[in-house]
């Protein structure tokens, strides 16, 4: 039933039947999904559906108990979080968690923590830095300020910028619009769109704001209480009434427990 857009391109990430537990809670139940190079794929679903858990399983913070995660054909289930970053997967954690006691500049520098050994890396880092400042000019203006003094939107930009500094092949975005005023959220989405279009970054976007996310994405998955219930092209999902049901529980009797 899935419709694959870019079959010729290489599959970058493949998740097969993973199960993840938070303490005693079975948070992800047999979830499988895949990402192709250059895509924006969005993962939508109501609060508590397990979206963040999926990202945390990917980035090694809450390792999955069973199943397999292949990144460019390499299994990464058993790697530590910092090793996964090295593989080329960067996560932008939810809630704009930047290092508040450090300056904007330092935050970005830490984003490129992996590249502090070789000189060649350092020049490359400088370039990436310029790129990030290009994306978010406001960060350049504030680069000497402590991150704690930034506004909500700026924090989100910094958080994304920091993840970009690691030069990821795959960017994981966890609810970048959460708690932001609509205008600001829109700005963030615009940048994400640019990233994909201009920098060809592969993006896995977790969102609650389904409409905005689906407008941006190529494909989407819908998660409900730890299970994938739908997948398809963004356009098809936008039309699907089921999505609304997953959020607000309308007409529940028909589709209860599949």
């Amino acid at each position: 039933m899935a419709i694959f857009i870019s079959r010729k391109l290489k599959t970058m990430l493949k998740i097969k039947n993973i199960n993840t537990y938070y303490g005693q809670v079975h948070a992800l139940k047999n979830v499988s999904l895949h990402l192709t190079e250059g895509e924006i794929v969005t993962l939508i679903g109501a609060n508590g559906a397990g979206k963040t858990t999926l990202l945390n399983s990917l980035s090694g913070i809450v390792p999955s108990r069973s199943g397999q995660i292949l990144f460019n054909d390499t299994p990464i289930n058993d790697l530590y979080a910092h090793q996964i970053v090295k593989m080329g997967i960067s996560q932008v954690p939810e809630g704009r968690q930047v290092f508040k006691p450090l300056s904007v500049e330092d935050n970005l520098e830490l984003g490129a923590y992996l590249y502090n050994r070789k000189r060649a890396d350092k020049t490359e880092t400088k370039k990436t830095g310029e790129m990030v400042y290009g994306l978010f000019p406001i960060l350049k203006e504030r680069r000497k300020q402590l991150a704690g003094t930034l506004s909500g939107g700026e924090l989100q930009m910094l958080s994304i910028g920091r993840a970009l500094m690691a030069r990821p092949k795959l960017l994981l975005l966890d609810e970048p619009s959460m708690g932001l005023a609509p205008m600001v959220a829109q700005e963030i989405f615009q940048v994400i769109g640019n990233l994909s279009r201009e920098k060809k970054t592969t993006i896995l976007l977790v969102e609650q704001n389904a409409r905005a996310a689906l407008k941006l994405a190529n494909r989407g998955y819908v998660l409900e209480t730890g299970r994938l219930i739908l997948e398809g092209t963004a356009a098809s999902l936008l039309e699907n009434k089921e999505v609304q049901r997953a959020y607000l529980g309308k007409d529940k009797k028909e589709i209860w427990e599949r």
Partner: protein
Amino acid sequence: MLRLEGITKIFGGLTALKDVSLSVTTGSITGIIGPNGAGKTTLFNIITGLYTQTSGDVYLNQKNISFFPPEVLAGIGLVRTFQNVELFGQMTVLENVMVGLHTKSHSGIFSCAFKMPGQIKEERYIREKALQWLEFTGMADLSGIQAENLPFGKGRLLEISRALAVEPRIILMDEPAAGLNSRETAGLAHLISRIRESGITVVLVEHDMELVMDICESIIVLNLGKKLTEGTPREIQENEAVIAAYLGDG
């Protein structure tokens, strides 16, 4: 029964709640919903005295309880459960519920240490009452188990049993269905209805919309720290603003 007037909470420079007013009628089940980061848990923490609001007032039966600490609130019949289940892990199930009866007993250190006759009688009362509550929630057969060894779903039930033992007039539940499977959720829905039938007002923050739509009589929607709307489940499901808040206005 419970009334909030103009609650505002500012953390550092961040406004988590802005001028939220709402009221809960006696004997109802009220749901508070909203997207992540809407300020639901913050609101709960303010009502239950764990946070102090920047401005605004909280009333319980016309009485201003704005700055009451949680232990005093428990004494006047307001109790809550936690999103992450805060059990007393080192104690047995029964003992957990017995702690819930703290406000219903009065023996001091002296009479406890010397096992005064009154204390022995009271202890017997506490034990019986606690067992009654465990029967109410269907956990009586687990009473001897150490709480940290309970499966998650049972832990939730224990937390609710313990809160009921306080004999509250109003109980606030923070995501009681989180982490439960569908059968457990159905059981929970039934339990919540029974709690209401016994005359206790219920307020819950919940993400499981099935549950909320199913059992709540009235729903309050928060978004970005503000109250978006309130109404019956049907009204909420059809409200465009709510749909936009959840699905985005694109």
